[in-house]
């Protein structure tokens, strides 16, 4: 029969009533709380007993304290006088039990009780939550900036889309926790001051858990779509829990060694920051080292040397090839990269002549195009606008650097709409073409003839953005 049991701590930090009820329930089943923690609480076996628990907050305490302060011990002495036995603590939270079910509660003054929770929350929960929320919002802001530059690429990239959804869910969880606390605090303060009653907290941990479950789902989807090295994916998946566990171990170790609260806090926080940078650097380096891998890498037919680096030659199937447009002889590398989410599928194609003896000017004919298909009609207009607006003229004082698409005759492309890129002072042979649910960006590295445009339109207007094309 096991003597230790670990349970997930699934209640809000300030939800005294829920925690008390849980501990009383566990004691009746023969489990006494032994140790608290951010995720798991540890219980040890005992004789099943009906006990009364009390959760109180002592704002003067800090989770980095090597031992309880004199003030904290004095308060505990007071509590002992009424039969309240300290069980354990968790920073500012103190857990007591009493064998006398009719014992006078530890806190009997609602105003003081609410004020204690407010001061404890501010230091131990709100600040870390706000920092976390700020970091998540900053991350989302950076991602959305990227979306503005390349909406098709980002919405069709499962890692990008699902990780944004994951971060979005985490922001909602954090805002829900913070918002719920403030809502309770305003009402509780008013009830205590005006009516002398303590308004019990009825937090809804289920709502947080549902949001967390969605967040975990998007994390798994991100993880399964990740195409970098497996080690990096694992590291990415475990990074946050790993950092938190190591940070917690450092803090506990320093507490055990009797290091002062300020030194402990400085070392623990610095370690977490350093560790975050270290892990992010390792992940980034391993992704860069493994190469971005434009092609899926399934159809490698050879290699060549280019400026001292070995590059692979691919023979991926392309719907539109230079050979269909012009009679050019060269050794080609044909690459296709497909990505797909529930919103959008997109395949990037590229065909270029393999440089001979490191000379890349053998033939300037090169072709690049992206075929994207919008899966939900209601998104089409938004994505079309975003794709057109991805390029914007840059204004530097009186000087305007041209960078935008302008409409051209769509009938030549047999498309709904057709645009051509104006860049610097030139009109570039890059086209943005719109068919029913399809958006194609096509870049010729030469001036296409009307016949070549007609052939390209015939193929790209009918092709679907899939791997098998």
């Amino acid at each position: 029969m096991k003597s230790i049991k670990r349970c997930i701590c699934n209640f809000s930090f300030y939800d005294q009533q829920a925690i008390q009820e849980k501990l009383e329930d566990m004691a009746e089943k023969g489990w006494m709380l032994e140790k608290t923690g951010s995720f798991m609480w540890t219980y040890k076996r005992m004789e099943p007993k009906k006990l009364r628990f009390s959760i109180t907050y002592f704002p003067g305490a800090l989770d980095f304290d090597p031992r309880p302060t004199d003030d904290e011990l004095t308060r505990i002495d007071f509590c002992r006088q009424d039969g309240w036995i300290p069980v354990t603590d968790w920073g500012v939270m103190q857990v007591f039990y009493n064998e006398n079910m009719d014992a006078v509660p530890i806190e009997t003054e609602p105003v003081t009780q609410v004020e204690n929770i407010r001061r404890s929350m501010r230091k131990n929960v709100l600040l870390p939550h706000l920092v976390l929320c700020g970091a998540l919002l900053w991350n989302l802001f950076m991602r959305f900036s990227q979306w503005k530059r390349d909406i098709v690429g980002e919405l069709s990239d499962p890692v990008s889309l699902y990780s944004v959804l994951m971060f979005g869910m985490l922001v909602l969880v954090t805002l829900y926790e913070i918002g719920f606390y403030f809502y309770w605090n305003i009402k509780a303060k008013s009830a205590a001051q005006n009516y002398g009653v303590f308004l019990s907290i009825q937090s809804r941990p289920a709502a947080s858990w549902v949001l967390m479950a969605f967040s975990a789902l998007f994390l798994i989807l991100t993880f399964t779509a990740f195409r970098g090295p497996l080690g990096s994916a694992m590291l990415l998946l475990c990074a946050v829990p790993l950092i938190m566990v190591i940070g917690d171990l450092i803090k506990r170790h320093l507490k055990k060694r009797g290091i002062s609260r300020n030194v402990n806090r400085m070392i623990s926080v610095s370690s977490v920051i350093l560790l975050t940078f270290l892990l992010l650097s390792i992940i980034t380096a391993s992704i860069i080292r493994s190469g971005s891998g434009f092609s899926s890498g399934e159809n490698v037919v050879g290699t060549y040397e280019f400026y001292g680096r070995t590059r692979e030659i691919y023979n991926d199937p392309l719907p539109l090839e230079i050979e269909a447009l012009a009679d050019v002889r060269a050794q080609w590398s044909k690459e296709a990269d497909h990505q797909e989410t529930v919103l959008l599928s997109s395949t990037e194609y590229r065909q270029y002549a393999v440089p001979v003896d490191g000379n890349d000017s053998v033939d300037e004919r090169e072709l690049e195009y992206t075929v994207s298909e919008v899966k939900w009609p209601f998104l089409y207009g938004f994505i079309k606008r975003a794709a057109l607006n991805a390029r914007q003229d840059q204004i530097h004082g009186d000087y305007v650097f041209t960078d935008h698409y302008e409409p051209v005759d769509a009938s030549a492309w047999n498309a709904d709409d057709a645009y051509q890129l104006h860049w610097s002072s030139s009109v570039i042979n890059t086209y943005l073409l719109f068919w029913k649910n399809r958006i194609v960006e096509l870049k010729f590295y030469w001036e296409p003839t009307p016949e070549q445009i007609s052939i390209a339109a015939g193929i790209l207007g009918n092709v679907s953005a899939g791997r098998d094309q």
Partner: protein
Amino acid sequence: MPRERFKTLTEQMFYILLCLHEECRGADILEMVRTLTDGRVNIGSGTLYDLLEQFVKEGAIKETRAEGRRRSYIITEKGRQMLDKEYHRLLGQTADYDRILRKEASS
């Protein structure tokens, strides 16, 4: 309108200050109040600690002695004024009660 802190005293605050009319150990106040009120007023041990801290900060009581973690306190002039003010407020309430309800009973 929220009640201003210490402008009026709750029953628990009133009895803590009352017990400290003479020097007294903080922890002893719990029992003193229970005895004094015949068990009608019970102050939570945590609340007692918190209120003593707040009264010290407010200057309503002062620490007189500290033997280890055992601290003794006594009421200050300011605390006495707070207590008197509350006493007169309660007197006013009872006078109003007498004036209205006793008058009704006699008529």
